[in-house]
């Protein structure tokens, strides 16, 4: 068991990758076995995440050096700095892993039924598992170049998955847009990594964080990193690919892409907090993040009002919700240098934002999955053509409503708890930001009233007389997500204390992150 915990960081990455290349071979033998393999792999990754999480919350940061003679030997004997690829797992990384494990398991179960009629499913599952491995890698790595590699792995597999149903023109277009913006963003990240390497001859985040100076070149690198990650997480005004991509991808892939965007948010926070830390002018960078967040909230929700494509509408709402996270963590970043302010509201804002991250992934994932059910049964994403579907799809309607209410911040669901935490703490930083946040939340409710009204309510339209309820596996994956949503809504204090607060602490505590690798 100890051995398993020691090796679990790499196993979480390597097992999905191994399974990814096993699927094409196995699906030649038996299709059923392939499906079982995919779900087992996802469940196994989730299990490893849980045992690693227990260890990390008990014993602190966990490092794993690839190829060394011992996993914790970060710096080889004759060297002064870490040379090998190091995986560094702290409470923040494992928090992201929990999100990803949950959503990818739900999406995997969903795709068993959703992708049934597609051809070339062995390639679909290969790409899906590659994406799972790539995103896990991004969360667990402690090395900047490795971050770039895993970013590209998840981008390539994600782009291919978006365009998987090549018979739809818009799917290919969405995939192309996704892959182009990912490539440009990733190359800019690589350029910034080159700048770091030129100055410090280091690639490890912790070792770089120890020596970073915030010179002129570091500022250029910071601009590239922050904006490249902001583009990949879909923050306004770099958000325009989000609705194009999310709307056309298969619904399960959209739920996964949503989390893979959040990983870029994680990478952004990692850059700002663990890499630069207090060396940068926290007020400036904090306000840049806050402004990106405010713009995302406002433009995202107002653009969602006029959408008539259900998945585009939810995609714009995603932009809006990620704005909340940027706002909350930006407030934490802006007061990073002031311990008094950090104690009174900074940490609370950050735990609110981080709590909102998991809520965001869960309820938006649920909404996308429910919208996917509509597409699967009705054959359109256009809200103008829908109506009265709740008569035949009662459970889908209830689950969609649950996701919508959670997203709009209606008590007692989880969205309310995290948004309340954000409002309460941001209000002490700047009251106007909190008030705008509340207004945006109200408009969020309005857009979901529109979506729910036009899709589900009213008398059943004659052409949808024979529409049936969602298939069982799709229903199962949606129910998994909704149970977690309700649980988080009823016990928010538990989640904040157990998961969100340690993650916020881990981000703020740069010294601990550095000393885990460099020592001393």
């Amino acid at each position: 068991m100890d051995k398993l915990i020691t090796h679990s960081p790499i196993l979480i990455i390597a097992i999905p990758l191994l399974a990814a290349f096993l699927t094409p071979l196995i699906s030649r033998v038996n299709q059923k076995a392939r499906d079982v393999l995919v779900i087992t792999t996802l469940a196994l990754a989730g299990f490893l995440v849980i045992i690693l999480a227990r260890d990390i919350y008990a014993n602190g940061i966990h490092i794993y050096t690839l190829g060394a003679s011992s996993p914790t030997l970060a710096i080889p004997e004759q060297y002064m700095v870490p040379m090998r690829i190091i995986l560094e797992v702290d409470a923040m990384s494992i928090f992201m892993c929990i999100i990803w494990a949950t959503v990818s398991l739900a999406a995997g179960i969903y795709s068993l039924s959703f992708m049934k009629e597609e051809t070339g499913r062995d390639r679909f599952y290969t790409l899906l598992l590659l994406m799972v491995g790539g995103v896990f890698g991004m969360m667990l790595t402690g090395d900047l170049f490795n971050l770039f590699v895993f970013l590209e792995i998840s981008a390539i597999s994600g782009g291919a998955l978006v365009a998987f149903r090549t018979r739809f023109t818009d799917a290919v277009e969405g995939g192309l847009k996704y892959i182009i913006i990912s490539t440009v963003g990733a190359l800019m990240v690589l350029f910034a990594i080159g700048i770091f390497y030129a100055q410090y001859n280091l690639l490890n985040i912790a070792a770089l964080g120890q020596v970073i100076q915030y010179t002129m070149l570091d500022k250029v690198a910071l601009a590239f990193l922050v904006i490249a990650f902001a583009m990949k997480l879909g923050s306004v005004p770099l958000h325009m690919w989000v609705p194009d991509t999310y709307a056309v991808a298969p619904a399960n892939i959209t739920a996964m892409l949503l989390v893979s965007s959040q990983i870029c948010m994680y990478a952004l926070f990692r850059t700002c907090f663990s890499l630069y830390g207090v060396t940068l002018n926290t007020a400036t960078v904090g306000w840049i993040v806050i402004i990106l967040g405010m713009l995302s909230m406002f433009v995202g929700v107002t653009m969602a009002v006029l959408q008539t494509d259900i998945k585009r509408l939810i995609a714009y709402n995603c932009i809006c919700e990620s704005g909340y996270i940027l706002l909350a963590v930006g407030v934490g970043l802006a007061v990073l240098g002031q311990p008094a302010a950090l104690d009174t509201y900074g940490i609370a804002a950050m735990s609110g934002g981080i709590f909102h991250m998991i809520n965001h992934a869960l309820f938006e994932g649920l909404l996308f999955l429910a919208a996917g059910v509509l597409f699967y049964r009705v054959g359109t994403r256009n809200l103008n053509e829908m109506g009265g579907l709740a008569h035949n799809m009662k459970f889908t309607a209830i689950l969609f409503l649950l996701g919508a209410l959670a997203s709009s911040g209606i008590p007692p669901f989880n969205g309310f708890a995290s948004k309340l935490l954000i409002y309460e703490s941001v209000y002490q930083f700047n009251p106007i930001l909190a008030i705008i946040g509340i207004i945006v939340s109200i408009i969020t409710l309005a857009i979901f009233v529109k979506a729910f009204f036009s899709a589900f309510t009213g008398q059943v339209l004659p052409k949808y007389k024979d529409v049936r309820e969602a298939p069982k596996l799709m229903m199962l994956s949606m129910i998994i997500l909704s149970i977690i949503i309700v649980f988080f809504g009823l016990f928010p204090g538990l989640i904040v204390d157990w998961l969100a607060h340690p993650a916020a602490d881990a981000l703020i505590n740069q010294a601990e992150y550095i000393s885990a690798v460099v020592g001393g």
Partner: protein
Amino acid sequence: MTQGAPFNVPFLAVAMLIGIAFYIILSQRNLIKLVMGLGILASGVNLFLITLGYREGGVAPIYTNVPIEKMVLPVPQALTLTSIVIAVATLALMLSMVVHIYRHTGSVDAEKSRTMKG
């Protein structure tokens, strides 16, 4: 790294490549040209990385023909190689998507072939 005119030439080339690439990406509506621009951007970044590996007086890290003290650290080479591999994969994926777009819409123009906006 010594500050002399010849040593800055690669960096000038990097700046030119990235500049050309961004010009193409920003101005060319033809999707094939856009993908070419991305290829040039990747080459520019790769050239930047490989230039960082240069150390005056160092020898290429090939194990069979060097006295060991003079070897440069092969990290930038490894990075460049990885990034080339990734660039190959992305370019192939993008080109195949462009082929599909051309099949569907009969155009490789970013404006004419788009189906979504707003």
